[in-house]
């Protein structure tokens, strides 16, 4: 999979303790596993089930998604800037899909 997520931090430079907002959008079908194709066969589930965000290696936010999350999942959350480092967003899902996106934050 060569999917590239779109990630936007409201600021890349923050003072210690400041709240940073992260918005991320990734292109994915999020097939529910409940739909039937033209031959009335169930279309197998294919979703991104797990999302994790780490800042400088520490998990700040994570989420488990069910098929009730809309296609091309969008996620927005916030974290408190305490140290500089990479902001890594990872989606994992069915069919061994792993999508990784990265940005960075500088505190000071």
């Amino acid at each position: 999979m060569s999917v590239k997520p779109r990630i936007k931090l409201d600021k890349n430079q923050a003072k210690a303790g400041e709240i940073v907002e992260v918005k991320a959008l990734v292109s994915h079908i999020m097939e529910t596993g409940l739909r039937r194709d033209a031959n009335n066969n169930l279309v197998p589930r294919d979703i991104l089930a797990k999302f994790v965000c780490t800042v400088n290696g520490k998990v700040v936010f994570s989420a488990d998604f069910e098929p009730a999350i809309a296609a091309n999942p969008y996620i927005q959350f916030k974290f408190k800037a305490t140290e500089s480092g990479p902001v890594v967003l990872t989606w994992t899902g069915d069919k061994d899909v792993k999508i990784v996106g990265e940005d960075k934050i500088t505190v000071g």
Partner: protein
Amino acid sequence: MDWTIDRRRALAIGAASAATAALGGLPALAQGGNDHKELIAKFTGGKTAAPGLVKLDLPEIAENGNTVPMVLTVDSPMTAASHVSDVLVVADGNPRGGIATFHFTPAGGVAEASTRIRLGATQNVIAVAKLSDGSFHMASRQVKVTIGGCGG
């Protein structure tokens, strides 16, 4: 007699598969019939969730159930001593109850998350938050859906 039973059975099977195919298109069938209560019970371990602290922002009327914006906020200081750890979001009228589970950490600073969800019909969306002191809080919002969004 055998013929009658067979015919009834055949009709029942026909109706059931039609319902499965239509999914979100049948609100009357879907309403309250999914596993959302079990999911909440499993999440809280049988404890009752008190109203308050949790805020769910959803449109009152969603024109398209395929993508409904949802904002979840939990009023919490988010310190190591007092924070929200997990929030379960379920819907009572989708084919399956679960929507998402958010895991917050004190490093997050603010317990706020937003995403876009699928709603198959007009129904209630329920959020249950687990606090670090072991208590549970919840919020519920009804969304009127004009076009279902679960594979219909």
